[in-house]
């Protein structure tokens, strides 16, 4: 589903006849997603007479995406275009870790812990971080969110870790 291709290949890997690597790789990735969707929806029923089955529409869109992906790939071969953009690992890596940390700690540890932890991890995403001010802002933001969401907005969020509530 979330076919997130990892680091794109370095441009030297690209053969010479690919003149627009950005489109070429993009098209291939879309085709891969389409094939994956076709496989994932292969267990669903198709047309029953003239009425649609559960799998008809997904397969229709998947085939459409497959065709479009192929077209984009072809365009990538025959037109001049930019090289693959450079990927940086630091930002995406720490932001992802921060999001995962939040997801895994919000239930057992409560919002105060989850918000603090993910703020500090996300802050590692840039070399510009200065720790003193980051910690101060983290505390303030956590306090603000702890008041805003459960109290001002009345959303059912648990603030403290489960073991402290029991």
């Amino acid at each position, binding site marked *: 589903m979330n076919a997130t291709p990892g680091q794109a290949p370095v441009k030297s890997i690209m053969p010479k006849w690919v003149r627009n690597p*950005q*489109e070429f790789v993009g098209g291939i990735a879309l085709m891969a997603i389409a094939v994956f969707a076709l496989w994932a929806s292969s267990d669903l029923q198709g047309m029953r007479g003239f009425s649609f089955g559960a799998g008809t*529409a*997904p397969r229709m*869109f998947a085939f459409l995406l497959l065709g479009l992906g192929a077209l984009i790939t072809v365009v990538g071969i025959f037109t001049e275009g930019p090289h693959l953009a450079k990927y940086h690992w630091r*930002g995406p890596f720490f*932001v*992802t870790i921060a999001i995962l940390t939040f997801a895994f700690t919000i239930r057992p540890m409560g919002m105060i812990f989850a918000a603090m932890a993910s703020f500090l991890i996300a802050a590692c995403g840039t070399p*510009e971080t200065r720790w003193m001010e980051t910690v101060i802002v983290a505390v303030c*933001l956590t306090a603000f969110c702890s008041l805003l969401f459960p109290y001002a907005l009345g959303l059912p969020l648990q603030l403290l870790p489960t073991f402290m509530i029991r």
Partner: protein
Amino acid sequence: MGDVFANLSLGFGVVFNFVQWTPAFLGGASIPIPVNILLCLIGALVGTLVGVLPGIGTIATVAMLLPITFGLPPVGALIMLAGIYYGAQYGGSTTSILVNIPGEAGSVVTALDGFQMAKRGRAGPALAIAAIGSFFAGCVATVLIALLGAPLTKIALAFGPAEYFSLMVLGLIFAVVLAKGSVLKAIAMIVMGLLLSMVGSDIETGASRMAFNIPELADGLGFATLAMGLFGFAEIIRNLDAGGETDRKLVQEKVSGLMPTRKDLKDAAPAVGRGTVLGSILGILPGGGAVIASFAAYTLEKKIAKDPSKFGHGEIRGVAAPESANNAAAQTSFIPLLTLGIPPNAVMALMVGAMTIHGIVPGPQVMQKQPDLVWGMIASMWVGNLMLLIINLPLVGIWVRLLRVPYRLMFPSIVVFCCIGIYSVNNAPTDVMIAGAFGLFGYWLIKHDFEPAPLLLGMVLGPLMEENLRRALLISRGDWSVFLTRPLSAVLMAIAAALLVLTVLPALRKKRDEVFVESEN
């Protein structure tokens, strides 16, 4: 005509609805509170607050703030969202004028002349004319919605499934034609969105589709989740790449002399008028909307100006026209949403998401069954515009200070805020992870020059399209020609086909690129 006034007065009645608040400490005395106006005000303020943060566009702002409206009754929630939307748009103009960082595509054009004005110490008049122009455009558009709303609803009621399907095809084609960049890639993104919308249960058989037995996917991918991933997280990751601090040339001079001079007003007035007309028309078209409106308005002003070379060097008309067009289009794009139930752009798609969460299915039925909701929202648009004018202008100083918040502190806060927001939709940690995955996917899309906005539109229209396609074919007993034999549907399909052919034609393609490129030089 009488209808229009009756409807508008109903709307303003809803907006100016006072609730008697009887707090215990007053000993039985009650204070009337204009709840909806307050909500609109808070929405506009918070929307500006978030929208003014550089790198956060209108879509991201609305997506991020969606959860704070969940606890409200439907009317209040939608009024607040409308306020957030206008606030976010105004915030976007503020950043493009003051820092030359347009938060979204629509305000790219504003940055051209607005930033030049700011560099010359005329940031105040630039911001003021943007707000005044927007307010004027908003007034005109509100009346237009009231005029067109009822008749369009009548047309909508004559629509069968075949017509609805054709209309959505037309809307998606419009979205592609009017978008920036490659047509092929935009279509691919729409189809990608359609495909993503298929995840979950089948509406007719209830069969689980592409959900891999993950309980959180059984109901389909959450709309807010996807939007926050694609627009919130992905933008953050991308901005980190750019090295947050480097490209932020903040205008250091104090914003002084807020009011435009008499000459400014005289120069800008006709531009505001032209921008409003152009924006209102482009906004009604399905798939149209704010972006193309501001580009087109700027191009028009430049074409008819006596001295076009002034543009790009701080010409006030270059701010007034696109800002008015932008706002007019933003407002009239509610027309297809409220009358036909079809979101014409990504922000409206978010509105549909919000309505669905409150159990409202937008469309002609809503107009008849819940007139207070529809007309209340329309009236609140006007009130929202007024709020921006009378409250945000004096607050410009605060917004400027906000711009000085360094990105290294801002982005972790946004990450945490988004996480809490997504989690609070369903109290599901899995949703947070899905949003994270879409954040990475969105980052990859940006790197390959794919626009995420059409994807969002496809995602919302997917279930509607499938349902109407299925129904149309069931009624016609499997005959696909039904889309061409029913006259209304045939006309819509013909327009769609013609548009698509026109875009592929080299001559028009050049023109279309010109509109976007010209304003960048």
